[in-house]
């Protein structure tokens, strides 16, 4: 929605920080130019990583008082380049540069039935949606899956707000989400909104397609960094340009190629648009496709990859259990446009 995504940058002051789950911190901001955040909206903000300015996106969990107070919640990412670590250093009184709310994940009011699916930190994008659906008396269900209860933010609050409409699945309590069952509960008029790890979303997409439910009713947002495999260091080569670069664990292939001097095209940098596509000429290992641009068939063919998010891994068979990081690095030989 082009019209609502005009970036207006402004100062914001941190007014409150609070831990809301293991590794997850709630950060409340007071922006200089308040604007109400619609459900599904996020802000972009400037982070400092090793003295360098960079940019990260965070969903708006709560937008109180016409957008005068915006609450974010940030998970300290495991192999972080530093963005989420920076966010965890913020304290009340700090200021930062943020955009007004941006919207790539709009909630449509008026569907017959809704399922909201949150996986882990993806819950941040769903909280405001659930609140609005409750307010308009929609027929909705919120499904919240996580590894362990202490790492799941806002559980109590959601239980209080949504009662029986909330369904919780916790891996280490042996109540893991069964994607097949979840999707079996959807019909032609159900809209499913989800945000979570790519594996979860892939599984839902597959089940959704198998049931021949309308693709347009499956709505999701990617946070742009989770994959099927743990990130490994790997090597990328472009013979035509004489480039060989090592992609470190905490860096993307696109960044590594840019640094090595390749003139790269891109737009979203989160695996949605397909503009960063590269052609795979040879491969020692497997590709961890982390995009949502290619169909499953195309990902399987492994002829191309979105280098902003996807990576090479050491798995002879492509099976996760066959990845042997120690034996690496994987090597991918490509050509670019």
């Amino acid at each position, binding site marked *: *929605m*082009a*019209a*609502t995504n005009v970036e207006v940058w402004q100062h914001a002051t941190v007014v409150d920080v609070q831990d809301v789950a293991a590794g997850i911190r709630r950060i409340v901001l007071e922006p200089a130019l308040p604007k109400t955040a619609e459900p599904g909206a996020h802000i972009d903000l400037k982070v400092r990583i090793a003295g360098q300015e960079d940019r990260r996106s965070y969903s708006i969990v709560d937008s109180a008082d*016409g957008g005068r107070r915006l609450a974010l919640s940030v998970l300290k990412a495991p192999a972080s380049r530093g963005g989420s670590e920076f966010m965890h250093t913020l304290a009340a009184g700090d200021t930062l540069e943020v955009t007004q709310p941006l919207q*790539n*994940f*709009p909630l*449509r*009011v*008026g*569907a017959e039935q809704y399922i909201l699916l949150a996986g882990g930190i993806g819950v941040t994008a769903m909280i405001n949606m659930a609140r*609005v659906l409750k*307010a*308009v008396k929609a027929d909705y269900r919120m499904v919240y899956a996580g590894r362990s209860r202490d790492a799941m933010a806002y559980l109590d609050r959601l239980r209080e707000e949504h009662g029986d409409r909330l369904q919780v699945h916790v891996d280490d309590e042996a109540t893991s989400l069964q994607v097949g069952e979840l999707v079996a509960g959807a019909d032609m008029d159900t809209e499913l909104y989800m945000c979570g790890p790519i594996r979860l979303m892939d599984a839902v997409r597959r089940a959704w397609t198998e049931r021949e439910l*309308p*693709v*347009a*009713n499956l*709505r*999701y*947002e*990617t946070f742009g960094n989770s994959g099927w495999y743990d990130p490994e260091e790997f090597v990328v080569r472009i013979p035509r340009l004489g480039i060989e670069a090592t992609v470190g664990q905490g860096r993307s292939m696109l960044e590594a190629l840019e640094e090595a001097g390749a003139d790269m095209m891109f737009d979203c940098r989160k695996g*949605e*648009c*397909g503009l960063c596509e590269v052609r795979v000429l040879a491969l020692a290992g497997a590709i961890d496709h982390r995009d*949502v*641009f*290619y*169909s499953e*068939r*195309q990902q399987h063919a492994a002829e191309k990859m979105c280098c902003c998010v996807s990576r090479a891994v050491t798995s002879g068979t492509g099976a996760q259990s066959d990845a042997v990081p120690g034996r690496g690095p994987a090597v991918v030989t490509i050509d670019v446009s």
Partner: protein
Amino acid sequence: MTAAVQTASSTTHKVMGHPLNAWYVAGWDHEVTRKPMARRIANRPLALYRTEDGKAVALADACWHRLAPLSMGKTMGKDGIQCPYHGIVYNSAGRCVSMPAQETINPSATVPSFPVVERHRYVWVWLGDPTRADPDLVPDMHQMDSPEWAGDGETIHADCNYQLVLDNLMDLTHEEFVHSSSIGQEELSESDFVVSHEGNTVTVTRWMHNIDAPPFWLKNMRDKFPGFEGKVDRWQIITFQAPSTICIDVGVAKAGTGAPEGDRSQGVNGFVMNTISPETDRSCHYFWAFMRNYRLDSQLITTQLRDGVHGVFGEDEEMLKAQQQAIDANPDYEFYNLNIDAGGMWVRRLIERMLVAEGRMASAVQAGI
């Protein structure tokens, strides 16, 4: 900013902003078809069309990809519309359902789809917060499609801020000057009127007792009472429903037969139905109809009344356009208010309250300056 805005005691804005949390008419029911059409409402260009099942749809008239107007595209499948440029197909919810030259769909590819309600022969659209789009908030214009009323209307594309049309309709003393050959008469500006307001409505009531019927009303009386001669009691009861609907209960009855007390059997009664949708800050779509509750079966009378009112409103249209031009040509002059503006001033106050509630008062007014 002009002086009109800075004068705190006066809220007589020359260019009024429009609330967004409201239903506006996007078109007559018969205008919206399987062939997409373009119409701008409240500064938002819309593509309007119907699904195969006949449901009216209002999408933003700009494709997600390169903003090509969807209204130039064609409807597709059950409820879709295809962008005329590179072929992206959207469903009625504004979701992309097919993307050219790729096997998947970019999840962010959507265009806004606005809530729509079809009622009273109109297609209404809600451009504000969709969670507040309650169909019960559609203004009451039941005469439009009630079996007890017959009539028809048209649309005027008025080259003026919508508030000028509301001002025009809330004070009918102008009939004496603008419509002297049809419905005007000097008793209009001489007779007293009563203004009241309640909730989101404002009412202006005017009775003229024992007067000669002007040409328009004499003809109507003779349609019901062939050969009628003599004095009449005439009424105009103007009811505004915020933000931009005005239904006017008008009529005349044989003088002294009890019409003011409620017995209208010796008279003719019409309802002038008006609902105005801002287009830009300086133009609007003015939907009107004239409904009557006598000789319901006469298509001849329906056509004659529609054509008659068409002529009358043509005179308003010209005045409104000239007024807007004079306003723009004189940015340093303010509006002043007369006692006859009481109805219009209440209208402004109710609209301003809606704008304040939306947090848009300052910006909505400034945008127009």
